[in-house]
């Protein structure tokens, strides 16, 4: 199945690039999404199975692959809307790159060796670069350059981390550093090498996860990319970075460096919260504010991993729910720019009056992403703070709560301004655009799922997350 998926994806991506018309491109993109959904169903049925030697349908991979499959259809739909005014060549490049990106992300989720995971992560950078540069503006060029440059540096650093893992092996016995074979030799490894490898991997993959210290790249990229692309790279692609760090963390968690890893993750998480809170308070660009919100959420995820216990479960649940909530907000940003022709906070206002469906999505999205009940994100955040209390990590708890208060203030005042107030700056007076309210359906569905989790967690979700964290220390 996996071979069929990869071959099919390559052929579809190439066909979309050479497509003679928009209709053909749309049909091929939908065929691709059907292929991805089929792979996801297959992965659910064949959990634990290894295919093509380097890919395994383990629980974490299946969980994140399901999120990706769930987001693919609305991303394609909003992408069709966003690119409808483009010429055929640009239209095809966008959809071909999007198909390639989704394929690379699926490959990264399923990779069972460090090197294959690294290769797929590297490949996502090229696909994302094409998508960020879609609008062909000076600012898009700058964001693309920064994205490629910082990601490349991060990827090189992550590779140094992998090389350190190689030194632990020392010989060609396990030439591809599979996670399962590595777990057999990890107990005898030099802790200093493990620590260095972990730091390199965290710093390297933080470019993808959007975590301190290499977070800047994601902020620029997410704010400049077309909104449907921002929705995907602010969620599913960040999940790729998280997965790489999570895999290494799980692998090393049986060694003596567990406390060291926890300190590193808590530090990275708190720094992420601090920087995100600071910049959200001065954010004047709506998409940048959402990008900082993603940064803040990844900080919370890192803290959740670092505190251990129920934090592990909370981290994975938060990753899933953040993906659903944040993507719907980014889809909404695409519609907001259609109505208001801007992302600048000063130039926006009266959105609920101009576009009630969109305004409702924006307010509901704000409540869900800020983890205010009945948002499902309230559950993992409560678990995180509860674990901190159990562990007696009072300093981290108080600091995190204070920083989150700033985040709640910054985001809620801005969303309220957009929804209800008049624009502060009306220099460029343009008639509001129109968007069919039916186009918000996918956003309501995704937000509805997040809210549902507050009241009911489906057993399959709890089971999948439970299996993902089963190897971690209790």
């Amino acid at each position: 199945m996996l071979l069929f998926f990869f071959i099919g994806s390559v052929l579809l991506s190439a066909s979309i690039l050479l497509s003679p018309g928009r209709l053909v491109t749309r049909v091929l993109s939908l065929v691709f999404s059907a292929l991805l959904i089929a792979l996801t169903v297959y992965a659910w049925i064949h959990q634990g199975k290894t295919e093509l030697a380097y890919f395994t349908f383990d629980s974490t991979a299946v969980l994140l692959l399901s999120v990706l499959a769930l987001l693919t259809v609305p991303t394609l739909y909003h992408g069709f809307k966003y690119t409808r005014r483009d010429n055929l060549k640009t239209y095809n490049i966008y959809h071909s790159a999007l198909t390639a990106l989704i394929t690379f992300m699926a490959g990264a989720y399923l990779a069972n060796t460090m090197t294959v995971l690294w290769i797929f992560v590297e490949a996502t950078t090229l696909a994302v670069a094409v998508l960020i540069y879609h609008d062909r503006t000076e600012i898009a060029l700058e964001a693309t350059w920064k994205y490629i440059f910082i990601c490349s540096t991060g990827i090189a650093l992550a590779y140094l981390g992998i090389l350190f893992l190689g030194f632990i092996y020392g010989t060609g016995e396990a030439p591809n550093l599979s996670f399962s074979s590595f777990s057999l030799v990890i107990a005898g490894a030099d802790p200093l090498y493990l620590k260095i490898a972990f730091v390199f991997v965290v710093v390297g993959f933080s470019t993808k996860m959007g975590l301190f210290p290499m977070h800047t790249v994601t902020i620029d990229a997410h704010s400049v990319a077309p909104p449907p692309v921002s929705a995907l790279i602010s969620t599913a692609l960040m999940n790729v970075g998280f997965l790489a760090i999570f895999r290494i963390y799980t692998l090393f968690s049986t060694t003596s460096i567990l406390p060291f890893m926890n300190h590193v993750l808590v530090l990275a998480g708190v720094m992420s919260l601090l920087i995100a809170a600071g910049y959200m308070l001065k954010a004047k660009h709506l998409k940048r504010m959402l990008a900082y919100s993603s940064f803040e959420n990844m900080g919370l995820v890192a803290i959740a991993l670092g505190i251990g216990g129920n934090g592990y479960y909370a981290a994975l649940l938060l990753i899933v729910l953040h993906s659903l909530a944040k993507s719907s907000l980014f889809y909404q940003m695409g519609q907001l720019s259609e109505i208001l022709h801007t992302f600048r906070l000063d130039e926006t206002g009266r959105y609920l009056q101009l576009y009630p469906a969109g305004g409702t999505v924006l307010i509901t999205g704000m409540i869900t992403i800020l983890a205010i009940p009945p948002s499902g994100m309230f559950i993992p955040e409560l678990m995180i703070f509860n674990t901190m209390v159990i562990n007696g990590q009072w300093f981290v708890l108080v600091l995190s709560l204070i920083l989150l208060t700033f985040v709640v203030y910054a985001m809620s005042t801005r969303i309220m301004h957009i929804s209800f107030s008049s624009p502060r700056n009306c220099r460029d007076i343009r008639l509001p655009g129109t968007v069919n309210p039916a186009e918000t359906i996918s956003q309501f569905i995704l937000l509805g799922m997040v809210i549902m989790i507050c009241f009911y967690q489906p057993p399959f979700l709890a089971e999948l997350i439970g299996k993902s964290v089963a190897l971690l220390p209790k």
Partner: protein
Amino acid sequence: MVNYLIVIFAVTLIYFASAERLATYVRLIAVQGLMLCGIAVLELKEVNLINLLFIVAETLFFKAMILPYLLNRILRRSGVTRVHRQAMPGFYLLLLSIAGLFISVSLATILVNPFINTIYLAISLFTLYTGLLLIVTHQLILSHLIGFLVVENAVFFFSLAMGSEMPMFINIGLLLDLFVGALILGFFGLKLKPHTNELTMLKD
């Protein structure tokens, strides 16, 4: 012989810190490519012939010829010859570079491992340090690019240290090179406008 090449490689790194002309940087990148080629030929005797030829071709043609050629083209196109006036002065960079060398050697001594030569470890750590130093202390994006190429050489140098045991690592290092090729060709060579020396549009 390998040790001589490694020492020359290390000298190029110190030279990076003191140089202020971008053309010098490009020449140093070419020299590093040649040194890496020599080290690969002398060190990787146990690797199969096709793989070795591939590695030599990659270092000799890609690192020592194609990359410098592309960089020179970009320099001519941009008209920039020197590092940014606000970059850290060469003297301080030199001091930082020498301090970095001592730190790298000390770290390598601590990280003794039966599978890796300490000299390799020390110089690759020093190369990584120099690359990051160039990126952090310089403002011109061309200097950043050079810094990234030095970081990339650190990765390749590191992978060479394990090449005989695990040639797969070198192959992946080559992949990183191709990635860099796409990066330079795609953006610096073709997209970025000649006057684009600094990127400051995206700010909060």
